[in-house]
């Protein structure tokens, strides 16, 4: 008998590619797989943002932080100017 796959309908779940799956956002302390406090559902609606400094946040959390005067555009974790890693 000879079997050959013609069509393969696979299923995969996507996750944020993080070294530690249980890691939390440094701003809101929610897990990255969850969403920021303002959002209802995780995933596309509440993306993450990577800084060149290697720190990761919920994008909404970081934007809210950067809007504040006192942030002076710095990464909240290491106080270096925050620059998003190029996609």
């Amino acid at each position, binding site marked *: *008998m*000879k*079997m*050959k*796959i*013609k*069509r*393969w*309908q*696979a*299923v*995969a*779940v*996507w*996750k*944020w*590619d993080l070294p530690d799956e249980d890691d939390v956002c440094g701003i809101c302390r929610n897990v990255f*797989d*969850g969403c920021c406090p303002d959002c*209802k*559902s*995780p*995933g*596309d609606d509440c*993306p*993450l943002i*990577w800084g060149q400094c290697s720190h990761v946040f919920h994008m909404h959390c970081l934007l809210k932080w950067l809007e504040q005067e006192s942030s002076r555009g710095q990464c909240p974790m290491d106080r270096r100017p925050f620059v998003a890693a190029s*996609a």
Partner: protein
Amino acid sequence: MDKGKAVDRGSNGFAPAKKPTLVIKGFKNKPKLPDDFEQTSWQKLEKAVRAIQSSQRVQDSLEELYRTVENLCLHKYSETTYTRLSQEMERQIKSVKAKLESFPPSASLAFLAEVRDAWTEHCRQMLLIRSLFLYLDRTYALQTNGIHPIWELSVDMFRTFVLTPGGATLVGSMKGLLLQITSERNGNVVSRDLLRSIVQALLDLDLYDLIFEPELLAETDRFYTEEGDRLTSEVTQAPDGGVALSHLLKRVEQRVQEESNRCTPNVGYLTPSSRRKLTQLAEAQFVKRNARALLDAGFDKLMDAKATDDLTRLYTVFNRIQCQDLLRDKFTNYTKTKGSAIVTDTTRDATLVDDLLEFKLRIDTTVSGPFRNDESFVHAAKESFERFINIRPNKPAELVAKYIDNLMRQGKGLTDQEQEGLLDRCLSLFRFIQGKDVFEAFYKRDLAKRLLLNRSSSDDAEKSMLMKLRQECGSQFTSKLEAMFKDIELSKDLATAFKATTTAQTLDVDLSVSVLAQGVWPSYPKMEVAVPEALARCTKVFADFYVGKHKGRKLDWQPALAHCTLKASFPKATKELNVSFFQTLVLLLFNENKSLSFREIQQATRLEAKELTRVMQSLALGKVRVLNKSPKSKDVSDDHLFEVNETFQHELFRVKINAIQQKETPEEQKATNTRVFEDRKHVVDAVIVRIMKSRKTLSHTELTREVFGQLKFPLDAKELKKVIEGLIDREFLRRDDKDASMFVYVA
């Protein structure tokens, strides 16, 4: 006078000729009435009156007689004439009285006829007499206080002397009348004309309302009480109360009809003013007095028998006697009892939803038909459904979700409209269910299967169902379901884009991937499998492609959900096999080996034993057997051998091998349930904390009430207590130091 003079008269000043004058002088002797004027006039009149009273021809012309009366009045003899006339009338009426009293006192028809004749004769005479004495009536009787006009006087006399209240004549004739009515009620034919005249006489004499009607009602009451009791006891004692109740209801309707007919002018003989009282009596005595007993004995039977006509009668009667409440309670009770019997019978789970749908339809048509959409009944039905569906927690929600899944998958050969209608009806059941989260969990799981395995019979139906759910429960309820549809759409686009890449074209497998967002889809247990090199390379290519498109993401493969189409060449036939990914992995092994033991297969695929057992069973023991197993037993153990079924044949080219995985396993069902309960615990946690955060301190009872007010699913008070204890342990709350039943929010 000639013309010339007349012309000049104005200018020459001649005085006009003197006008002739006429002088009127009085009689020398004042004309005098003859002394016997009054005497003779009255004699003439008396003769006429007596002639009328004895039904003889009146000798003088009526015109002359009228003038005579007029003359008498003009000469101020009104009073004496009136007195004389009334004496004449009294004499006549007394003779009538004597004549009637000479009859033996009885209630016979002959007597009734006699009374009627006396009255009609009296009326005839008095009409004529009044016409003759019209002038007297107008100028004297009507204008003098304290005396009656002639007609009223005669009526009064008739009442005083002939039909005296309490007198034998009146009693006798009323008794006769009632006897006739009873006889008619018993189904005999009576002379309605005669009765109508008597009733008319009573009305004219003002005896109907005060004297006759009370008697009539008393008699009617007696009659219907007796009949009502008899029929009620038939209902309560009959083995099948339904038939007897139906009989009774028809009887009531008929009786009401009869009474109403009896009171219709020109057809019946009683007055319309009695109609309402009589029909009410009939209904009261038949139904109202025994309302509860009647309902207890027959209502359920009528409902069971779907006796629309009888139910309509029942509602009409109960509405009129103002006992809708009783009927509604009975109806509520029936719905609840029958409904909970359906719901709690665990042996009927397979047909539960069908049964409920049918029952709902029956109740709905009963409410809209016989009960005329009475608002309180609509409400009662709704409340009953809500009550009994939730008697058994969770199961109905689960079954309704599965029922819908079934509908969505195969369409059952229904037209779009039929399917739509059925979905609407399912939704109307869903509306009553409190545990909406259970429904959502099961619906979601089934929807996931339909979407991933491409099992939906129609996309439009899925979308319209989603719309309905959103309308019913709000967008929050369906947001995850909608996200699932979105994932599938995106995955389709992704697959097209992937196929267009050059690397994808180097693969010899047509790979398309459904990429799911986490948290939106039901979570599936992770399964590790060993994937052959060639296939692993495919997934790698796709993963690279995907991550290239979406930075910062990675893919977790779900082999348990994947499925494949295989091209299989058997010695006797070449087929396309539609199989799950696990089945594929097993079948691929047989490309190189003719026969393998269970243990060898497990080592090669690294599938979990339980899962692999199911896969092997589906391949070797199911309807379509691609493999042969030895020994040929149902159970599978390590050293059992499997080999390709060389003689495999099938009438179709495309063969689908049902994987047991696609059927729901008890574990899966339990898992869904536990997940729901886990979720609920979190919801309760959140609700309590939210309440306490805003209220700071609350007593246990108040807190309980608030929580139950906000929850959308049923919760045991015991479980709530446990959750509160948990929150105290985790220091969200603490008990008040002084009052242990008070909780304080810990900030």
